[in-house]
């Protein structure tokens, strides 16, 4: 693998956005995800390889370290920022179809719940692992999930909740999606939910951390 791709992966892993960014201190003054992605494209490395061996490789490390509590939300957010700056350079290749994404993941915080930090963490990790992400925001009703599923056939759905009082809506929304799109794959996550709850409401997958979801999604399309 090219040295450049390895460097991009490291920028994503450690949250190095661009040369001017002071974070992380040990990479101060070095080029970041922004410059290196541009450079890689200019050198003729394919956008697909940059995504796979640069961004996804870096993001996988982030996901694993986050799951193991070796890093916490701030570090993940910095990695997300680094990823987003790199994504800007790759976007045209997604749009032209030159880079193939693994599938589409539709995510939203369920009706009655306005919390978005967990949802956003999951979003960026899924996107950084090569998925097309459709973020429906917070306080999302069943109809909105269903409409998005009809627009993106075969997409996976992620329901997020922080409040114990909105877990009830997860069940309502899961049932409504099942009725409208019987073969939909529904995943759930959030502080109050667990595997038992997932089984009870008939969702397909619960993961307690974003990496677990990414591994599930990747295995589904492998």
């Amino acid at each position, binding site marked *: 693998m090219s040295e450049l791709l390895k460097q991009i992966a490291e920028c994503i892993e450690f949250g190095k956005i661009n040369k001017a960014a002071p974070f992380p201190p040990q990479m101060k003054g070095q080029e970041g995800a922004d410059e290196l992605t541009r450079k890689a494209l200019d050198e003729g490395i394919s956008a697909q390889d940059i995504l796979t061996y640069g961004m996804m490789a870096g993001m996988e490390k982030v996901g694993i370290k986050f799951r*193991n*509590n070796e*890093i*916490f*939300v*701030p*570090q993940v*957010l*910095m990695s997300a*920022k680094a990823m987003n700056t790199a994504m800007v350079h790759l976007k045209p290749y997604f749009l032209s179809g030159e880079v193939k994404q693994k599938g589409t993941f539709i995510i939203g915080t369920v*009706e*009655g*719940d*306005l*919390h*978005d*930090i967990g949802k956003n963490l999951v979003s960026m990790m899924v996107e950084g692992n090569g998925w097309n992400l459709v973020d429906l925001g917070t*306080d999302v009703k069943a109809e909105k999930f269903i409409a998005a599923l009809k627009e993106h056939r075969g997409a996976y759905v992620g329901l997020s909740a922080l*409040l*114990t*009082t*909105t*877990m*009830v*809506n997860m*069940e309502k929304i899961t049932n409504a999606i099942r009725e409208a799109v019987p073969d939909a794959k529904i995943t759930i996550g959030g502080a*109050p*939910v667990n595997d*038992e*709850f997932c089984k*009870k409401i008939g969702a397909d997958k619960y993961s307690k951390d974003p990496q677990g979801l990414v591994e599930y999604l990747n295995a589904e399309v492998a």
Partner: protein
Amino acid sequence: MGKITNQLKKGRILLSDGAWGTFLHEKGLQPGECPESWNLTRPNEVLGIARSYIDAGADMIETNSFGGSRFKLEKYGLADKAFEINKAAAAISRQAAGDKFVLGSLGPTGKILMMGDVTEEELYEAFREQCTGLEAGGADALMIETMSDLDEARLAIKAAKENTHCEVFCTMTFEKTVDGKFRSMMGVSPTDMVNELAPTGAELLGPNCGNGMANMIGIVKEIKQADPEIPVLVHANAGMPVYKDGNTIFPETPEEMARLVPDVLHAGANIVGGCCGTTPEHIRKMREAVDAEQKKNRPS
């Protein structure tokens, strides 16, 4: 009545109250409805909650203002009523408290400074507005709680210190990591909290929310190790919620939580109380545990 911290200096152990959010839902608050709006629209229901904790024997009660910052209220179109809502919240608890203390509750704004969601000035200003509203309504102390980020906590403490005469307390929420350490969502340890927030003038620190009373013992020990002098408050959840027949239930019973109170006090806590899922019955049982412990300390 004096100050809460003066009472603690005399060696008293004090009892705080239990849950507000889960209690409001029991009284009919709908998911998606703004809990703090009830201070204006259904003050008698809120007063009922406050009174039930005083009746249960609490030495202090909180206010229905956890999500009362303009950043939370703006999601319901209520940002411009922030001062009024917080003032009403404190006035309701004041009415119920009589000669007991009122802790004006301030929760996180949901904005992340390092992501550039907001500036420090905007956060400070939002906390200033909330603090002054709570003081105007009669809060004795400001309870900055459920924090996970040190910078946000620091700004809230600064706003409270610089703009009110209230005592200023702060709790953060810690979870146990895979290797058994305690960390907030943003990676802050109880030791970090003490080292960073005690110098800002917070007069009391502690853990709240979390996964139940048992974890609180280890967290309090760590806080006391970092600073043996700082007073400590614990507001514990009644365990992790479980889902049963369309309802979420917090599993720790009043008896179970009360049984752990002596351990939390021996670890160094000065004030104990409940968070999500705790009820007046939990507080009643904890009252018995606290009284028994005080009696032991003073056998005469």
